[in-house]
């Protein structure tokens, strides 16, 4: 049996390489056979011609026998594939214009799909490098049972999980963001970005050290007891030139002596998209950065054979037990970002994004993916249409080949191979294009204050996706034309060369209608998104970001505390103000679009209660220096701005936003009213104390509520289309924060980063500027999403429209060519040019009309779906729809222009000679 197999294989391989020889031998063999057979008939008394014919008849279809003999050699599949590829490439080269345009349009569309998928892969699918068995990792986060609500898990819960969980090998905590830390050296300070992790983090992930050791559970977890750190491989190379003597070296990090115990192996950069330079144990968080927010997100590793659902059930029951034992009632999230809606912990497969934003990002990416797939569908319909048309043109050739005995299946396979080649070409070019597009995406990302892993790797998943997509597209749009073409009716085709009315024409029209419809949808979507972006980014943001420089500082990095820090900020603002190019300057805890802070404990206002029935309002708040509103051009509607007189020991004052004033004192003058600022948790609110994300100084012991007097009302900040939030502004000098941004408006709109840096360095060389950016470049996440959607849909819509126009042009041209004779006769019979123009135009525009109508209906449905999301898109946008309809009417006309003109110029004499 084995010898047989071996013989078989050897034969096949030899047959493959000696194909030409074997074919010649077969020809000789069959010739000899026929000769002998003919000789027999001749002996029976036939003439030599008749005998030869008889021999051929007895033998059967010559080509068929040869083909089957070749098949029997067992190399047919490879051979015919090679043949098909060769034939296909010949056909593609012979029609360079078609090949080039088709491959190019496919490349653009496949490239767009690949690009979006690269994002999907990076943000939702890719496993962190340098981690063992990443498929067993999970994220744990507060949930309300259906959705994740918060990224961070309360320390008590995390502790309890680590102790009691059995279905997870380990549960670890880690920060999602990296925080700037100041490493002090003789020549000033350098910023490194640090993450905080529990001591079992590295062992749970299976990360290995490059040198030294990583944290272990032997490292003590009591606050301040483990002054050690692990460096990332990249930071080790960059900062210490890969010098192994770094082990055991003690660094001054934020004024604390921290010893480097190891360097993580090269690929590992943490588990989120933020890139850490250095990892600190959770026990050191509050020591290194007393004011810093270090809320931890939780993750874990499933035991082998345990499903996520099983682990989730256990985590949930442990969480419930711990909460019920807590004196203050249930807590879920880290404090300060207390979310009433979260009432349990959920478990989900780990990904680079925290579970709470994953849904949002997945939604956006789905939207983008949908749009780029639609463009690809258009491109496919276009190519399919052209293939059909070429099938018609090659009808005769195909019929001839069928007549001389070529198999229909073989023919379809050949035609399909040609299409596959075309798509392979498009796919390969698409991958190259996708590389370019991803680079561009990374370039246009808004500047980020912390290092984020923006690498968009082209890994096996992306390549597989692109290959699969190209194949799917090729088969779905090549199969029908291939089958259609090979179904040619030999006799009728060969007999007459007249225009066969066929399904093929109808099919091509269907393709065109689909094309137009889909591109209408895309154009309408583009209109909606551009409109929403414009609204979101328009003048109605409540402030003017243009020409404003914002430099972020962290005073705790240089060891300042309340009083000294506040003085430094005051000094800094004063000196920035004296710069010749600065119109005005100020400072603030938060910048517009830079996130928001909720109060831990809320405020109460006499005579007003929140609509949600809770005891306290939870407005966002900001701490600002005088001149903030003027610098950002936020209108002061009533009262006054803060002044230098609003200092630490003067009367506590507050400025409220218009929306705040309206909700606290509807219809009344807010000036002189009071707001009670609570620093203790409301009864039953579940707030258990501890450091907040961003909030009143966490080291403040709970104390009596502070009464703030309203001195001013300012305009609202608007983000996107949502209702402007109630905002409280307090004087920076009365509520110091270590993290602060200096803002300055330049006179000429230019950047001021260098000047501000120089002043900061002059005031204190140890104080680093964490980041500096032009406020106009800082884009809110909502706006960023909208912009992305607008750019993608506009590009998609444009490409789709051009492709649809090419499709209309192609079909109309084809029609004119086919009906030249008929048109000639009509003209000869006295038809007017106008009649001819009408005839051709009517047909072309009818398709556009049908496609457009279908497209508008689909777009209305899509618009309704989009309107349900947070993008601020109106469900009905008549103007956008009307504009899209008009646009396509014009595009249709333009596409028909050339063929119509050709039809109108047909000379009857030429036309009748045409055949």
């Amino acid at each position: 049996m084995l010898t047989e197999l071996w013989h078989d294989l050897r034969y096949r391989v030899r047959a493959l390489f000696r194909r030409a020889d074997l074919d010649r031998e077969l020809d000789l063999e069959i010739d000899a056979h026929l000769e002998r057979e003919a000789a027999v008939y001749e002996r029976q008394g036939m003439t030599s011609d008749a005998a030869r014919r008889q021999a051929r008849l007895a033998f059967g279809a010559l080509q068929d026998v040869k083909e089957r003999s070749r098949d029997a050699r067992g190399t047919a599949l490879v051979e015919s594939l090679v043949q098909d590829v060769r034939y296909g490439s010949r056909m593609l080269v012979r029609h360079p214009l078609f090949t080039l345009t088709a491959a190019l349009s496919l490349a653009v569309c496949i490239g767009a799909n690949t690009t979006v998928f690269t994002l999907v892969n990076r943000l939702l699918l890719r496993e962190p490098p340098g981690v063992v068995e990443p498929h067993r990792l999970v994220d744990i986060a507060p949930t309300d049972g259906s959705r994740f609500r918060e990224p961070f898990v309360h320390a008590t819960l995390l502790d309890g999980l680590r102790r009691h969980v059995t279905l997870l090998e380990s549960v670890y905590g880690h920060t999602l963001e990296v925080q700037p830390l100041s490493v002090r050296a003789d020549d000033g300070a350098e910023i490194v970005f640090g993450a905080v992790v529990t001591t079992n983090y590295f062992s749970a992930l299976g990360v290995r050290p490059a040198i030294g050791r990583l944290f272990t559970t032997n490292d003590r977890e009591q606050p301040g007891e483990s002054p050690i750190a692990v460096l990332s491989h990249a930071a080790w190379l960059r900062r210490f030139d890969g010098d192994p003597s770094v082990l055991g070296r003690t660094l001054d990090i934020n004024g604390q002596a921290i010893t480097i115990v190891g360097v993580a192996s090269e690929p590992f950069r943490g588990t989120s998209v933020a890139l850490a330079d250095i990892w600190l144990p959770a026990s050191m968080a509050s020591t290194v950065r007393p004011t810093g927010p270090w809320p931890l997100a939780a993750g874990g590793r499933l035991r082998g054979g345990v499903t996520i659902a099983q682990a989730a059930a256990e985590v949930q029951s442990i969480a419930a037990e711990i909460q019920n034992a807590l004196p203050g009632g249930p807590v879920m999230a880290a404090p300060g970002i207390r979310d009433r809606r979260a009432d349990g912990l959920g478990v989900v497969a780990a990904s680079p994004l925290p579970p709470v934003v994953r849904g949002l990002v997945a939604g956006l990416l789905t939207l983008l993916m949908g749009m780029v797939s639609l463009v690809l569908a258009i491109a496919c319909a276009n190519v399919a249409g052209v293939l059909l048309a070429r099938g018609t043109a090659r009808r005769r050739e195909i019929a001839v080949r069928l007549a001389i005995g070529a198999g229909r299946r073989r023919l379809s396979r050949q035609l399909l191979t040609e299409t596959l080649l075309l798509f392979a070409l498009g796919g390969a070019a698409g991958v190259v294009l996708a590389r370019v597009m991803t680079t561009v995406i990374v370039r246009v990302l808004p500047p980020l204050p912390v290092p984020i892993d923006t690498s968009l790797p082209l890994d096996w998943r992306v390549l597989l996706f692109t290959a699969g997509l190209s194949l799917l597209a090729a088969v779905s749009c090549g199969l029908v034309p291939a089958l259609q073409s090979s179904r040619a009716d030999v006799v009728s085709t060969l007999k007459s060369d007249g225009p066969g009315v066929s399904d093929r024409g109808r099919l091509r029209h269907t393709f065109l209608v689909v094309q137009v419809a889909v591109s209408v949808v895309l154009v309408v979507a583009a209109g909606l998104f551009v409109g929403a972006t414009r609204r979101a980014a328009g003048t109605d943001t409540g402030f003017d970001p243009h020409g404003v420089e914002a430099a972020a500082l962290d005073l705790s990095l240089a060891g300042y505390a309340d009083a000294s820090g506040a003085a430094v900020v005051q000094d800094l603002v004063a000196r920035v103000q004296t710069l010749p190019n600065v119109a005005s300057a100020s400072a603030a805890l938060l910048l517009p679009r830079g996130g928001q802070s909720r109060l831990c404990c809320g405020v109460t206002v006499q005579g007003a209660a929140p609509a949600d029935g809770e005891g306290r309002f939870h407005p966002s708040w900001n701490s600002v220096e005088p001149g903030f509103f003027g610098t950002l051009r936020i209108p002061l509607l009533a009262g006054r701005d803060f002044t230098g007189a609003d200092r630490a020991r003067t009367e506590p004052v507050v400025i409220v936003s218009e929306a705040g004033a309206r909700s606290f004192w509807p219809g009344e003058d807010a000036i002189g009213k009071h707001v009670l600022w609570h620093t203790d948790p409301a009864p039953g609110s579940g707030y258990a104390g501890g450091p907040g994300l961003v909030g009143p100084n966490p080291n403040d012991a709970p104390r009596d509520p502070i009464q703030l007097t309203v001195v001013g009302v300012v305009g609202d900040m608007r983000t996107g289309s949502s209702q402007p939030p109630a905002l409280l502004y307090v004087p920076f000098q009365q509520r110091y924060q270590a993290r602060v941004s200096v803002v300055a408006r330049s006179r000429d709109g230019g950047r001021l980063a260098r000047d501000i840096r120089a002043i900061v360095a002059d005031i204190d060389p140890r104080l680093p500027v964490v980041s500096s950016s032009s406020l106009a470049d800082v884009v809110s996440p909502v706006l960023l999403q909208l912009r992305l959607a607008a750019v993608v849909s506009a590009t998609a819509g444009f490409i789709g429209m051009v492709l649809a126009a090419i499709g209309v042009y192609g079909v109309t041209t084809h029609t004119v060519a086919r009906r030249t004779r008929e048109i000639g006769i009509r003209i000869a019979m006295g038809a007017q040019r106008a009649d001819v123009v009408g005839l051709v135009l009517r047909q072309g525009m009818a398709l556009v009309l049908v496609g457009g109508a279908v497209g508008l209906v689909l777009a209305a449905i899509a618009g309704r779906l989009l309107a349900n999301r947070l993008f601020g898109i109106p469900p009905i946008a008549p103007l956008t729809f009307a504009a899209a309809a008009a646009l396509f009417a014009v595009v249709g006309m333009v596409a028909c222009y050339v063929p119509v003109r050709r039809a109108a110029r047909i000379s009857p004499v030429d036309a009748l000679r045409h055949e």
Partner: protein
Amino acid sequence: MADNDRLDLPQGTLDLLILKALSLESMHGWAISERIRQVSREAVQVPQGSLYPALHRLERRGWISATWGISDNNRQAKYYALTRLGRKHLVAETAQWARLTTAVGFVLDMS
């Protein structure tokens, strides 16, 4: 013998007939079909279209081998010969065929 009296070959028997025909001497394609026709007293007409694919298949399996030689009419011809492997298969399949026909005969004789 009229055409419609000729037997259609059951699936797979052509291979066996070819092997049998080659068991006495090596032959070229046409001669094989002639031999089968003569020996079967014209009862079996080898479908010529199937002969060559079958020969290639058998050669691939290593049951027969092919060499070019000079034929009786002084022309180049491809001669097929039974290999050792082919002979083994011929014996085995002949026995199997006999068993099958006997068995089928029994069934058909049953009344």
